[in-house]
């Protein structure tokens, strides 16, 4: 179905309820869907499972921890090796108030791709012989050990793209594809904030990174500046 257009990020989240699993696109500052994150905050949706490569590393996803909206995160960057400077998520994690599934970044991307591609699992060498292997099946291929990793799928994905056309096709800017383009395939409801909406046909067929078939809702928003100082 072609995408539906909303006037505000709050309206675009209509029906996203407590307990939802939410994939959050972006990588640190690059194409993070900050307007949609803040709309989730305003709406007060609680008990969320957030799936994102980072939480509390310059992104505003951590803002949802202010009022304890996140119950669990599945992430690759979530807790620093030292508590000298901690995000709200980290404080809550160290206090045992939130749950964390720490996933190698490549395994996270591939699990999300698998969730979107109908793959029931895949074998990777990443994590063999480490804590990541705990509780996972080990299978072999050509004499090497591989972990069987399982797909990730979510109720909702919130994304940030650069442009959308009226059909729902998305294109990203620079290094903005990152987890956005992968998560677009792996959620029941896919919501994108974009900087600009153009007429259908204005995006060249080769400049479309996320075909319209993956996108349910679109809202135009001015991008929010995000900076991370690397600490």
């Amino acid at each position, binding site marked *: 179905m072609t995408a539906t257009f909303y006037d505000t990020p709050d309206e675009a989240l209509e029906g996203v309820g407590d307990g939802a699993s939410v994939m959050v696109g972006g*990588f*640190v*500052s*690059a*194409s993070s869907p900050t307007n949609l994150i803040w709309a989730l905050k305003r709406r007060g949706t609680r008990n969320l499972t957030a799936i994102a*490569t980072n939480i509390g*590393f*310059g992104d505003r996803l951590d803002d949802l921890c202010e009022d304890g909206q996140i119950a669990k995160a599945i*992430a*690759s*960057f*979530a*807790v*620093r*090796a*030292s*508590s000298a400077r901690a995000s709200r998520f*980290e404080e809550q*994690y*160290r206090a045992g108030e939130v749950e964390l599934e*720490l*996933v*190698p*970044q*490549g*395994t996270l*991307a*591939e699990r*999300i*791709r698998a969730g979107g591609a109908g793959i029931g699992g895949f074998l*990777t*060498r*990443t*994590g*063999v*012989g*480490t*804590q*990541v292997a705990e509780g996972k099946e080990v299978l072999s291929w050509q004499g090497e050990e591989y972990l069987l990793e399982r797909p990730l799928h979510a109720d909702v994905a919130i994304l940030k793209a650069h442009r959308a056309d009226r059909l729902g096709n998305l294109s*990203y*800017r*620079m*290094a*903005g*594809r*990152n*987890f*956005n*383009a*992968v998560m677009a395939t792996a959620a029941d409801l896919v919501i994108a904030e974009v900087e600009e909406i153009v007429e259908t046909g204005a995006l060249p067929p080769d400049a479309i*990174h996320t075909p319209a078939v993956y996108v349910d809702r679109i809202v135009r928003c001015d*991008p929010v*500046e*995000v*900076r*991370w100082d*690397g600490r």
Partner: protein
Amino acid sequence: MAAEPRPRLTRELVAMRVARELAPGSTVNLGVGLPTLVGAFAPPEANILLQSENGILGYGGFSEGDYDQDLINAGGQPVTLNPGASFFDSAASFAMIRGGHIDTAVLGGLQVSERGDLANWSVPERGGGSIGGAMDLAVGARRLIVAMEHTTKDGRPRILQACTYPLTGRGCVDLIVTDLAVIEVGAKGLALREVAPGWTPGEVAALTDAPLTVTGAVPEMAL
């Protein structure tokens, strides 16, 4: 700790020594921290292709000008693009890394074992730690160089018979470059290849908790 014979190498000198390991035209991924500095020491004529796991091949130096939040490396730092750079998504980026298409990865380290095991993401006594792309680079890169300080701040060895911290990867390290030495990891264990200027193989071995093989005279690092 006894007084040391000479100063240890600075982070910049370690990065400079690592840069000499990069073959012209090769594809390289630099981890956060010290490894990030390596890029600046690779001569432009070497045409190193820098890959960043957030989806860039061919980024250049740090961006000095206008901040563009959509053009950052895996450490979140704003960067520039070299001609011929390309963008892709995270699944494609890690397919590139895990599929063996990165010639060399340079990662920081907390501990390395004599079998080449790497621990670099968690210090159990402090709790926490994040994996990021380290485990993927550890298994995926054709050659893995670890750049780190030879000992902890309180002088304990980081090169050990077995890692005590949670592992990043098993048997994945090919070369260790520290502020005291260059050490190669081989089938028979660790071979001391170079020492920092003013340091002897014996002094380096005394700060290493795994046997170091020495073949002939060990040269000082050329910097």
